[in-house]
């Protein structure tokens, strides 16, 4: 979608390049299954719950970003903006826990 038109004349060839309903319904099914697994993991004790939180939750968020938010179809610019933001947040988390570890 990064090659979207920049004026009022939108060419119809974009319409055929767009994904249909099916791919998004499949992603939704995957998200529901992952939610089920997340809930299930929380019933098997603290370590499984934390494992579920650290793996399944980012995968779910990634699916929403990549498919529902159309990042899959975007160019490097928008992908870069999102990756830099996530990277910044991860650095904040790393700084927090490195600080906590030395107290």
């Amino acid at each position, binding site marked *: 979608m990064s090659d979207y038109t920049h004026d009022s004349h939108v060419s119809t060839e974009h319409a055929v390049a767009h994904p249909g309903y099916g791919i*998004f319904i499949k992603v939704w099914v995957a998200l*529901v299954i992952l939610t089920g697994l997340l809930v299930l993991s929380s019933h098997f004790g603290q370590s499984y719950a934390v494992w579920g939180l650290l793996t399944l*939750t980012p995968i779910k968020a990634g699916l929403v970003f990549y498919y529902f938010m159309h990042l899959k179809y975007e160019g490097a610019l*928008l992908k870069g*903006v*999102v990756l830099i933001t996530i990277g910044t947040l991860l650095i*904040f988390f790393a700084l927090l*826990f490195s600080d906590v570890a030395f107290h």
Partner: protein
Amino acid sequence: MTGHVHRDDLGARLGMWLFLVTEMILFGGLFIAYSYMRYRYPAEFHHGGGELNATLGIINTIVLLTSSLTVVLSIVAIQKADKRKAIAFLATTIGLGLVFLVIKGFEWAAKFHHGLYPSAPHLGTLPQGEQVFFGLYFTMTGLHGLHVLVGISVLTVLARMVGTGSIRQDRYIHLENGGLYWHLVDVIWIFLLPLFYLAA
């Protein structure tokens, strides 16, 4: 001036994404605060999570995931010039957003009934860690609920624009940007579910 109208859809989406970045940083800060407090008060957070209704949290997750699906399907419909389907999908999204808020309302009402709300006398008698847990719970789910309310309002305006033809097959950037906002609200809830409702 000619009749030519300049449009930059990529620029519009970039602007929206930059706004979403500020939202991610805003909630990211709260998630960092949560992480530190959970590290500091593990037992109290575990007990606090046990006070929440996990079933309602899971139902609300399915509701928001489904609303995310319907909003993206409305974009597919408008790309196919199917105005009626686009409006139907948007109406479903708005309906699901309202269902989310109603469920959240019941949940908060139950907490209020049990004296678990900010500055409540009963909450003041609980251990400090649990007070922090409920402080974060009301702050984060409240701020998220506010975003759901804004999202519903935006989607209502967008549904009307689809109806009047302002949003159509060759011009739907507003719908895309409104959808992006709604999806981010969904992503934030994806993290809130395990942190609060499955914490116990």
